[in-house]
Structure formats: C-alpha cells, structure tokens
C-alpha cells in the first residue's frame, strides 16, 4: 500500500501534508509537539476526518470515516495513552467489541485460543486469561499490539509507544517492530526518542508546523539530521555541563523513608543546595512513589524529610509547600495542572493565600500580574495568561507547573520526568531553567528515565532498583552502562 496523500487547508493542524508507506516498511514520524503528527495519524486511524485530501490504500481510493472504517482497511492504532481495560483479562482486551459468541454468550475458550498465537508472535509469555492489571506497562503495550494484529492490521500506527517503557522493554518492542516489518506489516512509529528512531526506522518523515519538513532515508538517519528537520535550525546538543556552583551542603535530606510501594525498604540520601541530583532507575523501581512520599501526597510509612535542618511534618503537602519543597509531578495532566483552568489560576493555586485580602477575597490584578511575569520570564508560548492550560503544548504546560513553584520561594524542587512527552526544543529550555534554579541555590532532585537527560543535566546520580538505592555515581563515573548496571541491581549485596 502506498500513496496515502492528504491535504488540509487552513488554520488547523495540517497543511497539504503528504505521507506514504510501503508494505513492510518502518517509517518514523517525527516533529516537535504540535507539528501535526498525531492529527495526521488520527486521520489515518479514522478518529478525525480531513477537510480536504485523498487517502489511497493499496491503490484504491478510500474514505475513512470512523475507527471501524480504518480497522476494515487494515489500519491499527496503538495510542500513547493505552486504551486498555485493566479490569479485564488479556483475551477480553484483544477481542473487545468483537467477542466471539456461543449461544449468545461470550465464548471464553475461543477467545483464549485465538489470542494465544498473537501473543506468541510478539514473544509475550503470558496466559490470555491473565488480568491486565497484573502485567507491566510494557506487556500491556504488547497486548495493544496483539489487538491490532488480531484485527488483521496491515498498517500499525504507534504513538510514542516507549514513553513509559523501561529500557529492556523498549529493546523488546523495537525487536517486535522489526519482526512485524519482516512479516510485511507497515509500521508508523511516532517518537521523540531519536535514539530509538535511529535504531529501527527504514525511513524518517518529519513534520513541522503542520507541513512536510523533509524525509531521511535509512542511510541518512542520524541524530543531528533529524533534529535539524524537526526544528528547522541547528540546535546545540544537550550540553554536558561542568558544575561550578558553590554547594550549600545538606539543604535537603531524606532519611529512612519508606514508601507504600516497597514497604520494607528504607531510603536515605541528601541533596545540597545548588546541586542537581539525578535519580535513574527502571520504571517500577519506586522513584515516583518515593518522591510522592517525601512531598506528602502519599504519606510515607516511616522516615523523615529535612530542609535546612528542620524536619517536616510527615504526610502533609501543605507543610512541604510552606517549607519550600515542591514537586513537579510526572503526570502533568492529572496531578500537575488543573487543565481546564487558566494559566493564571494554575500558577497561583498553590499560593492563593498570598493574593487574598483579609476577607479571603482574591486580588485578581495581583494574581494576573504574577502570572504574566512568569509567562514572560519562562517564555511560555501562549496568546495570553488567560488561556486554559489544556490548550498549551506539553513543554509549555510543564513551564506553567514550574511557574507555579517559581512564583513562590523554592528551596527544593523535585522534578519527576521533567521532559516526558516534550519536544527537543522545549526540552533544552527546561534544562536551562533547571540549571538556573540550581544556580539560585535550589536543591534539585530530578527523577528521569531518559538516559541522555540524566547524564547531561545531573551533577550526581543515584540509581534505584526495586525500592532501594543501588548505587551512586559521581560526575567522573557517569556513563550509560554504569547506570544500567546499577538499575538492574548492581553489585550483589
């Protein structure tokens, strides 16, 4: 199948974009956030209808009016946010909406039998009757792919499939993609992780501001070329910087903290003022849970957190915020922002009391002035401070979260996956902001699964494995292998 062309006039997402893919080809679709990648794929997947343009599948003009049309044409879509029901088992998810029936009831045995071969193809060694909730995110992703395969998909679209996978799961997924290609299935792979693209794509198609920005053939693919296509200019590579900051020792200490995920492990570490501590580890190592316990949203079972020698009341977010300990959480949409609120209201939510008069009435002008100050100093791209956060791109949303904390008096900021789902250009801006904060003497605790990020931004790295700190690396010992070694358990203790 080839020659999938679509045109799109006007203000919205896409303008006269052209895209084609051959049988068995693996095409990576790259571009900054808001470049139109998802819109394009949603059109192919039947989620949106194009205003103009034609789609051809296998030489035949096709109209894709709905997701079921797309499925009938052999287009399968694996969404970034998994569309699975974790209260059902694997087989039920794969056959959701087209359950084989017997006497009007669901034929469970047939579902299990039919599901098994797809799981085998994907190398997923689980029983079809396992509940989804019992699987890791990586395995759940495979179930999504199995679902697409079971619908006889000829083209599988994967939107940021690795954004929540561990390194080994990612490796496994890339292998699967490769195998799919060999079996004649075309894969469209959307990703911000250029290393993965480099590893698996036969061709790279870049979009920029809703237009085609160029293509790279297999032999032309490399990091710099891709970045150039995406941003339309040469970008300084993530600078590996040398820290020259004076460290204010023991600004922030965590001692013997036990979080709910690993109730038997106690974790202790410290971060100096002006230091950026990177925390690496595999997904599920308990890093986010530790951060949440320290911040107080998920009260720790034991242990304490100290800022400048003063110990915080356990399990009180209010207390943490008062002491200057802030968290920029992993899931911006659920926990970082009230999405439907304006930028102003998001920025002042945590410090509303300081904009209030004696009677608890909010001084709207002061509030707006502060928000506008943050919009300007963080360079948040938005028509105005009254724009709802939901209308911003991921990078700008993250800046709003930051603005919320910067409008106060930060002493320690915990960043949990600060650039997840954020495009290259905005990533660099976030890194600069993090460094600027450190220069102001703020202690930074940065949790990240992005190797490049951990290595490029941190002054010191601790690695977690199954709820404990398995090792610590100083600047001169930094290296991907060293981190991976510790992330999988490190030296036997």
């Amino acid at each position, binding site marked *: 199948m080839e020659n999938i062309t679509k045109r799109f006039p006007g203000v919205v997402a896409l303008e006269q974009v052209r895209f084609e893919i051959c049988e068995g080809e693996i095409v990576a679709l790259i571009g900054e956030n808001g470049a139109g990648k998802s819109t394009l794929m949603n059109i192919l997947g039947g989620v949106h209808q194009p205003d103009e343009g034609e789609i051809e599948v296998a030489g035949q003009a096709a109209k894709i009016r709905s997701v079921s049309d797309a499925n009938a044409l052999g287009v399968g879509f694996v969404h970034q946010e998994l569309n699975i029901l974790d209260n059902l088992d694997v087989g039920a998810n794969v056959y959701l909406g087209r359950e084989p029936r017997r006497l009007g009831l669901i034929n469970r045995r047939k579902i299990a039998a039919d599901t098994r071969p797809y799981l085998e193809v994907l190398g997923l060694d689980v029983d079809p009757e396992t509940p989804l909730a019992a699987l890791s995110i990586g395995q759940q992703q495979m179930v999504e792919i199995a679902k697409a395969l079971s619908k006889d998909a000829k083209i599988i679209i994967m939107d940021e499939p690795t954004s929540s996978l561990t390194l080994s799961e990612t490796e496994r997924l890339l292998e699967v993609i490769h195998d799919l290609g060999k079996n004649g299935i075309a894969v469209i792979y959307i990703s911000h992780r250029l290393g993965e693209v480099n590893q698996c794509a036969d061709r790279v198609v870049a979009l920029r501001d809703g237009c085609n920005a160029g293509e790279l053939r297999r032999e032309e693919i490399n990091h710099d070329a891709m970045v150039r296509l995406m941003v339309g200019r040469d970008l300084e590579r993530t600078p590996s910087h040398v820290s020259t900051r004076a460290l204010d020792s023991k600004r922030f200490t965590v001692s013997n903290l036990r979080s709910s995920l690993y109730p038997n492990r106690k974790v202790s570490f410290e971060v100096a003022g002006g230091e950026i501590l990177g925390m690496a580890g595999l997904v599920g190592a308990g890093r986010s849970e530790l951060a949440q316990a320290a911040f107080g949203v998920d009260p720790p079972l034991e242990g304490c957190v100290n800022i400048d020698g003063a110990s915080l009341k356990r399990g009180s977010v209010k207390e943490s915020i*008062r002491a200057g300990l802030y968290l920029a959480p992993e899931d911006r949409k659920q926990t970082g922002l009230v999405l439907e609120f304006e930028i102003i209201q998001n920025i002042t939510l945590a410090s509303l009391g300081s904009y209030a008069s004696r009677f608890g009435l909010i001084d709207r002008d002061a509030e707006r002035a502060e928000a506008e100050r943050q919009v300007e100093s963080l360079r948040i791209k938005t028509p105005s401070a009254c724009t709802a956060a939901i209308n911003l791109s991921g990078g700008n949303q993250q800046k709003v979260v930051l603005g919320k904390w910067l409008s106060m008096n930060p002493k320690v900021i915990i960043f949990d996956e600060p650039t997840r789902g954020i495009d290259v250009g905005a990533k660099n801006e976030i890194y600069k902001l993090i460094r600027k904060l450190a220069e102001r003497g703020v202690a930074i605790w940065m949790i990240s699964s992005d190797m490049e990020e951990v290595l490029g931004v941190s002054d010191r790295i601790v690695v977690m494995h199954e709820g404990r700190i398995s090792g610590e690396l100083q600047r001169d010992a930094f290296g991907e292998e060293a981190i991976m070694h510790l992330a999988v358990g490190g030296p036997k203790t």
Partner: protein
Amino acid sequence: MTNSIVNFANQHRRETGMLGLLFILVSITTIGTIEEGIEGLFNSMFLTPDNLKNLARTIGIYGIFSIGVGIVIITAGIDLSVGSLMALLGVIFLYFVTPPGTRPDSALARGIPEVSWPVAVFWILVIGTLVGFLHGLLVGKLKLQAFVVTLCGLLSYRGLARFYANDTTVNVGDASQDLSMARKLGDGSLGDVLYGNAEKGMLHNVPMTFIYLIVFAVVATIVLHRSVLGRYIFATGRNELATKYSGVNTGMVIAIAYLIAGFCTAFAAIPFCIYTGSVQPATHGAFFELYAIAAAVLGGCSLRGGEGSIPGILIGTTILIVLRNMVNLMGYPTPLSDAITGGVIFIGVLVDQHGATGFKRLFKRKPKAA
C-alpha cells in the same frame, strides 16, 4: 457597549442561553394567559401582582437550597438529601415552637423542650449545618461516594421524620407562643416586616424569602467567584488530585461545600414550613433535591464538577418555577406539570450542548462501514 454585551454573552454562553429560554417561557405564559378583565399587566393572569408575589416567594425558597446543592455539584458531588432533611428539620422546628402536650407522642417529641422561635431557628440552622458537614466529612475525608452517602440521608431523614411524627401532620397552629413576627419574616413580605400588615404598598409585594435569596446569592457569588475558598471549590471539582498536589486540603474543601448545602437547606426549611403551615412528614419537601439538581444543571453546573455559577443556578430555579406556574395557569392538568418540566429541561440541555443539530444527531443512523 454592544461589543462588551456580546463579549459577556459569549463568556457566559450557558447563562445567556438559559436567560433566553426563560424569556421565551415568560412570553408564552404571559400571552397564553391573557383574559379580559384581569387586573394584571396586559390583562395577563401571569403578570398579576398576586401571581408574581407567589412566584417570587417560591423562587426564594427553592433558590436558597438550590444554591447549596449547586455548590456541592461544582465540587463534583451531589446532594440527594435536601427534601428529606427539610421534612425532618420541619418536624423538629415545629416541636421546638409548640407545647409538648400538642405534639404527636414520640421519643423525640417528648425530648424536645419548647423554646421561643428565634432559639428554634438557631437550633435548626445548627442541626442542618452539622448534618451537611457530616455528609461532607464522609465524602471528602472518608472518600465515600456522594451519591450513596446522600441517598442514605434521603431515606433515613424521611424515615425519621415520619417515625418521630407518628406519620401524622404537625401544625404550626398548635403553637401557643406569639409567632406573628416569625410569620412575617418567613411567609410575609418586606412591607409586612417594615410597616405591618395594615397598609398595602409596593413593598408588600416583595416576599421576604426573595430578599433572603438575594442576600444568599450575593454572598454566594462573592464566595464562589471571588474568594480563595471558591477557587478551591472549582479546582477540587475539576481535578482533585492536581489541587491536592498544590497543597490544598481538598477533603476539607469538599466538607465545607456540603456544610454550606446543609446550612442553605436548613435556612430554606424554616420559611417553607411556615408557608405550608404544617409538616406532613411523608410528603413535605419530596423531590426538592431533584428540583435543586435540575436547577443547577439547567443553570450550567456540570455533574462532572468544576463548572457552574450562582447566576446560572438562579436562572435555572426561575425557569423551573415559571414552568410549573405556566402549567397551572394555562389550565394543563397539574399531574402533567412534572412531565412538562422534565421535557423542557431535556430540550434545554440538549440544545445547549449540541445546538439545533442535537435532535438530528440523536436520530441519525451511522453509515455502514465499507
């Protein structure tokens, strides 16, 4: 000037739309009830002073508890206990103001002392507020589902009211103390309170309940749309988790919203019981919770939370009351009143969400896949 009106209408689309619906209803009712020799404006039965006064009184009572329920709905909760709570509070209020000998024989009737009516009012407000706060703690702190908590309230308060009144009617008339001031404040007009019943002036057509509603509305508007608490209520309703991550005690915000609802319900319960003159525990205030929810939803509150406004809730209440009045005045059978109310709410919400195409979409068949 016109520009700013257009802008305002755009920003408050829901309220503006519902104001339009209200205008249509009022016009229909006005025109539909014109008869020769009626003393009202345009000879319309709808626009007679007595009818308007009655409307204003009813809107006052319904509006007050609808504001409470609306605030709860904005926190993504629900309060189903309003009507039953009004019955129970009505029974208790009348026990407080009547001599023990005249009450139906029950444990509660024996246990409640006779007090002067202002003290009784005070206790009713305290009890209502505490009940609301209890709902709030159960929902906000213990994370029980609001629907279930207040459904249990709906059942139990009604049951208690009937039990403690022996399922018989309790009358205001049994009181031996002088309730004339209570009557003026509860069921009278501003003119009655200021100048007494003798004269008849303009202010004698402004019911006190309507005055209370205006006070409640002004205070609630300021609290909800201008204060820190109001911002927290909207934020909690929109995204409780993110609000919690900003250091807000969302459980307490929710508890306070139900506390406000309890206070509003208790406040409305007193004039309502004076107005009806007696409390028939099986039917007193029945379905009020649903009228309140309907008013809030009509006025732009989303049951998903985080959306709504006090002006919207007031418009919603007014639409409901005008609708019922219209059914009465235009001679439709009274039992049909709820059916017509339901129909108009449905059409209003459908048109609001989907415009005129809503109907088409409802009945459109999906094209078969190729």
